[in-house]
């Protein structure tokens, strides 16, 4: 019973995340394409399909969007000279 509730919670969380990402993808201009390396080039509607299908490309798009939202929450736009990684 407890396990089922936990599973439902995770599934609901995943669904909400997908819905959020799809809502954000819908704001992309319709006349552009997104090049995602060797995976290919995709229109807005194709990206939405991949997110709905939960395939590898869909997961990558979700990762990009969630990373952005995380950085937004952490105050990225209030920081100056935000530099990436160095080694």
């Amino acid at each position, binding site marked *: 019973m407890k396990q089922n509730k936990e599973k439902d919670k995770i599934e609901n969380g995943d669904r909400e995340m997908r819905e959020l990402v799809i809502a954000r993808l819908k704001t*992309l201009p319709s006349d*552009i394409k997104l090049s995602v390396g060797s995976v290919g080039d995709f229109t807005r509607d194709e990206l939405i399909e991949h997110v709905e299908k939960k395939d590898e490309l869909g997961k990558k798009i979700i990762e990009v969007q969630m990373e952005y939202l995380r950085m937004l929450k952490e105050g990225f*736009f209030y920081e100056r000279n935000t530099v*990436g990684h*160095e080694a």
Partner: protein
Amino acid sequence: MSGTLLVTRPKHDDTTHYLFYWAQEIINLAKGKGIKVLDLDKERANKNEFESMVAKMRPSFIFLNGHGGKDRITGADNKTLVRTGENEKILKNKLVYALSCSSAKELGPASIKAGANAYLGYSDVFIFSYESNKLRDPLNDRTAELFLGPSNQLMISILKGHAAKESFERSQQCFLQNIQKLVMSESSDLSLIPYILWDKMHQVCLGNGEIVL
């Protein structure tokens, strides 16, 4: 300015088509500065030509455009040019910028271990957006410029004599300026910010950041 720049730029799909034309700007700039440019374009971006050119002409700076993965960079028809555990030693004593997906994750560190001076690239997929109706005129695609402009900035900075780390920082700043420009605008391009930010956060500078061309 002395030095030799080797550029690989295949052109077999929309992505490489864009990288091909945007790399032309860098080639023109380098030539204008008196730098010898070895241009392995289209089908010439293959492993045999690449290895032979590196061995014979000993370029100090290599600019790789194309697809890739964490352990490789590819050329024409997505055939491997450099791969970890196979021929990363070819990058020894070179300053390398790889405009491709993910190669800074494994190939970058492996090439530094094999003696490359510095390796600039991306530790995850490089994403860019372009306008479908600009395929015939990629250099006038203002959407693609949001991504490829900061990438070219890195090359421009190195060609102007700045060190690898400083050039990386200038490119980072350029990504940031493009994001800020979109934030201040009311354009629908605002929705591209997550992808510009993604590229910015996954751009890396490995090895000796003080190296200059």
